[in-house]
């Protein structure tokens, strides 16, 4: 049961990383701010610059 829970936790962590939820959390903690529409807009602006240069594989 413990093992299953561990797998589920890791899977969720991977999904959070893939879908940038973890990146948003790091952004909030780096800038010492709480989640809000304004904070998310600022995060998206930062992401846009980074992501636009990231190739996506075929």
């Amino acid at each position, binding site marked *: 049961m413990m093992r299953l829970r561990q797998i589920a936790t890791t899977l969720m962590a991977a999904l959070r990383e893939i879908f940038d939820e973890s990146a948003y959390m790091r952004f909030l903690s780096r800038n010492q701010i709480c989640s809000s529409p304004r904070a998310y807009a600022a995060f998206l602006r930062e992401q846009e610059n980074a992501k636009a240069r990231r*190739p*996506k594989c*075929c």
Partner: protein
Amino acid sequence: MWLVVAAFCAYALGYRFYSRFISAKVLALDARRATPAERLEDGRDFVPTNKWVLFGHHFAAIAGPGPLVGPVLAAQFGYLPGTLWILIGAVFGGCVQDFVILLFSVRRDGKSLTEMAREEIGIVGGFVAYAAVISIIVILLGAGALIVVNALKASPWGVFTIAMTIPIAVFMGFYLRHLRPGKVLEVSFLGFIFVMLAIWGGQWVSQTPAVAPWFTLTAPTLAVIIIIYGFAASALPVWLLLAPRDYLSTFVKLGTIALLALGIVALRPTLQMPPLTRFVDGSGPIFAGKIFPFAFITIACGAISGFHSLISSGTTPKLIRRELETRMVGYGAMMCESMVAILATIAACVLSPGTYFAINSPAGIVGQSPEAATATISGWGFPVTAAGMHALAQAVGEQTLFNRTGGAPAFAVGMAHIFSSSLGGQAVMAIWYHFAIMFEALFILTVLDAGTRVGRFMVQDALSHVWRPLGRTGWYPSILATSALIVAAWGSFLWQGVKDPLGGINSLWPLFGICNQLLATVALCVATTIIVKMGNAKYSPVTLAPLAWLVAVTFTASWHKVFDPNPRIGFLAHARQLASSTAPSHGVSRLIFNDRLDAAVAGALVCMVALILLESISLWVSVISGRMQARVREAPFVPTRFAAEEQG
């Protein structure tokens, strides 16, 4: 099922023994060495990440429609050549390339492939890597767009579903921005439900005579729409639309791959395609040319893909927590991608060969009418009837399935066939088909908008050396000009494919394969050079062997594509045939020009890669003979704190 088991065994052996040998002997992974994620940690680009989390992240970045499309097209030779190449190519080539490039980038603070090529090989190496990357992006986008056009032409259901992803993405953007900031997984799940509703609604659209014509578009119309979309996505500030669509497509992609894997393992479909078909002689209807070299450039992603070296030297090396973990992330994630290619082979080969060839063969080869096409294909020894194809088209909710070149429709029919034998039966076959079409089209469109932006930034970077303002990413004249340049480049390949009576994919996909494998050649040149400079020349065959194979494959394929006297293979022969057999007109002149352009692109790429190869060989000889003192440009050694933490 035995194919899946065989693949699993091959990967297990490769990972357990070969990757271990590489990590211990060739690369000498060092558990005590700090990675850039640890040394340069900034919470943004450099973040030490759990190995399983990073494995998923890396896999999501390298897996796209490539491993699904290539194996479907290569199935024209039978299931055996493609399967063997996927397994052997991945274990000894693709996984090795991803692994070593990832490790070398980690040891160089996450430097890109072009930077490593410039520093380790020389200026020519850097320039060739840059040119190869730009070329592959342009041709990939042209080929990808053509696959979407061929999947959606005359398909009101498919067009409606894809059109609906725009309002769904706008809703997701609003939700993320104002209702639940940052809850991407949650909104992606909601978006997925809406997309499923859109697929269901598409059936109503396709069956309603008053609405269906609005969404029934010809190939040229779709091509124009996609070109406008690509330009808008690159030049306009539509990030709030594109980001949620990107998340949605990733969500659907991971779900589809998982579903396909579960479906094949649980339902164990029977392969109907023979191990080898008569088309091993090079007379294939989908693309002309013999197994060597064409099977090996048709399947790139899934066996070895140069594009992966960009990901392995991009985001991933900045997230690796321990050097030892590069083995699992680099080698392991590529094994999973290779397994996806095996699943795609199975999806294509569960179709009866007659059905497979009827879907994938262009009208220029099998004939315009259903009767002519079925007679031609049956004449090859693969029985199929016009009535049977009509019934299949009805079952999947299409007007016709003939001449749907590009691989995506055949994959979708195969997937629908597998699932309809249990989940929901024949009644929901159309839903499965359109789910697969939607997944591929949506994903390719996100590759298209991301790729156009990446290409635009690369051109802006290069032009900034000519005139600095052109490099400013916020300056609109530069944005518009460079976006137009990139879109015009891939748009011209798309237009050429749409107008090609042989279906377009016949010339575009091999060109894409050549580009992709040439990029892998560049990556393996960089890897071999570093191994030689590390003083490990005796182990250089680990990268040298796949490099030699790729040189043989890509150079032979390029030679055939340019000079082969068969007009179905050689670009120049095709141009000569057009010039001699038809009255000159504007359309024919353009086709001739396109053929010559394709020949020039293939020739130029091969010449550039030959240059980097010669420069590398000269460097290896100098280092091995002692005429030159080797100096690798790794970041200085810093001990990791994680090792002490683990021991403590």
